[in-house]
């Protein structure tokens, strides 16, 4: 195994030293504020690694897409028929909703509501993911040079993806809403009651409502309430109908609307900041869109 007992001692001593260094690093990193030495280290590593990662990504992405395409050919015919039926159904639905959309637009104009689609955004592409199963992060190819700052919300065509938590000149790290460290203030669209959604890794999101007087039903749309993310962005859909327990607390799960396994292009909302929320109450200074009957309660 080892040539001598002395060599074994050296190895063990080095092992213990490296463990100690690791613990010190972790403690220092956790205790240090943003902008400290560890942030500079991360920025530097990310800046160095980004071109290599982007290069690998450029090579790998088409290959994976081609293989995916080949493997999916068998199911394409069936999917095509299903989609044609879906298009017909949606066209019917669109005719019904266009009248409602006009009404909502009028109401938004009257109430001076900033809808998420009106906010300035920067389109970015994901080129890298976290290095382990436990990391719920993605890296995008836009950074501070494009106006990205820490705290901005990231969305895709389906809904909320996450929040920027580290920025370098040409890239940024996005922490997904599936990360247990992220909590999103939300509103259930059909009851207009608020709560918080917390990530649980690859599992469904958890929705906690602490003052729920009405039950939430399966399929109800959950949107951001505007406290730390721009108001009105779709977060997901309630997965299980639940009524409040004793004391009006309600806990259920939410299926996120963003498809994290298929993320490619995303938009960073640069035209809204958490500072747009009231610093004392946390309420949005921009009113979130109301989804109740407009004639009933909106002030």
């Amino acid at each position, binding site marked *: *195994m*080892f040539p001598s007992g002395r*060599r*074994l001692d*050296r*190895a063990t001593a*080095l*092992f213990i030293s*490296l*463990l100690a*260094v*690791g*613990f*010190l*690093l*972790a403690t*220092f*990193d*956790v205790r240090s504020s943003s902008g400290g030495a*560890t942030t500079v*280290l*991360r920025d530097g*590593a*990310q800046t160095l*690694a980004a071109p*290599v*990662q982007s290069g*690998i*990504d450029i090579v*790998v*992405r088409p290959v*994976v897409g081609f293989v995916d395409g080949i493997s999916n050919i068998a199911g394409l015919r069936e999917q095509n028929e299903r989609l044609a039926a879906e298009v017909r159904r949606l066209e019917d639905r669109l005719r019904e909703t266009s009248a409602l959309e006009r009404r909502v637009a009028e109401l938004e104009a009257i109430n001076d509501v900033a809808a998420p689609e009106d906010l300035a955004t920067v389109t970015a592409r*994901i*080129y*890298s*993911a*976290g*290095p*382990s*199963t*436990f*990391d*719920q*992060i*993605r*890296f995008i190819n836009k950074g501070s040079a494009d106006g990205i700052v820490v705290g901005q919300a990231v969305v895709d065509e389906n809904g909320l993806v996450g929040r920027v*938590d580290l920025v370098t000149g040409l890239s940024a*790290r996005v*922490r997904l809403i599936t*990360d*247990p*460290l992220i909590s999103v203030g939300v509103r259930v669209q059909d009851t207009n009651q608020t709560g918080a959604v917390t990530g*649980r*890794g*690859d*599992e469904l999101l958890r929705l906690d409502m602490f003052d729920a007087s009405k039950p939430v039903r399966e399929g109800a749309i959950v949107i951001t309430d505007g406290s730390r993310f721009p108001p009105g962005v779709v977060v997901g859909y309630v997965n299980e109908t639940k009524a409040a327990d004793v004391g009006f607390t309600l806990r259920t799960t939410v299926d996120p609307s963003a498809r994290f*396994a298929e993320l490619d292009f995303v938009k960073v909302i640069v035209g809204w900041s958490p500072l747009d929320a009231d610093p004392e109450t946390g309420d949005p200074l921009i009113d979130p869109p109301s989804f109740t009957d407009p004639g009933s309660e909106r002030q």
Partner: protein
Amino acid sequence: MTGGKIVIALGLVIGAVLIQTTVFQYIRPLGYAPELGLLTVIAISRYLDAEQAMFAAFTGGFLQDLLGGSPLGLWAIAFTVVAFVTVKVRAREVVGPPAVAIGVFGLTIAGLVTYMILGTLFGLGIIGRPGVIWDLLVPAIYNLVLAFPVFWLVKIAIRPQERSMVR
């Protein structure tokens, strides 16, 4: 020549971490990816001195920390533990593919458990997450599948250095 071996080993671990962050964001059967960095550390630790193996492992883990979302040092410790244990068990009189498979599976689990415990201690709450057993088992099984090609690649990358050292 020993310096050459450590440089190659470092290159392999760093390459593995970069591949992990790019290729395996797309290739995720059942939603999981292998832990290529850990697997490469196991592979290089079969050929390096104990100190070299731990140094390469710590450096690779530190890079994984820098490119990841957890506090710095956690993957560095996990990689170092795996390298240390690999060096300890590599000279056992058990050889052959089944022994290698069991070893890779066990060492991957050891590395992931180390990270999970440290992550929980440092506030990431990993152990309490739902489905954490699968987070442990599935990457270990994928590492088992990838072990033989990765071991072969590491062998052909490091062995010439050993031969030139003998000369």
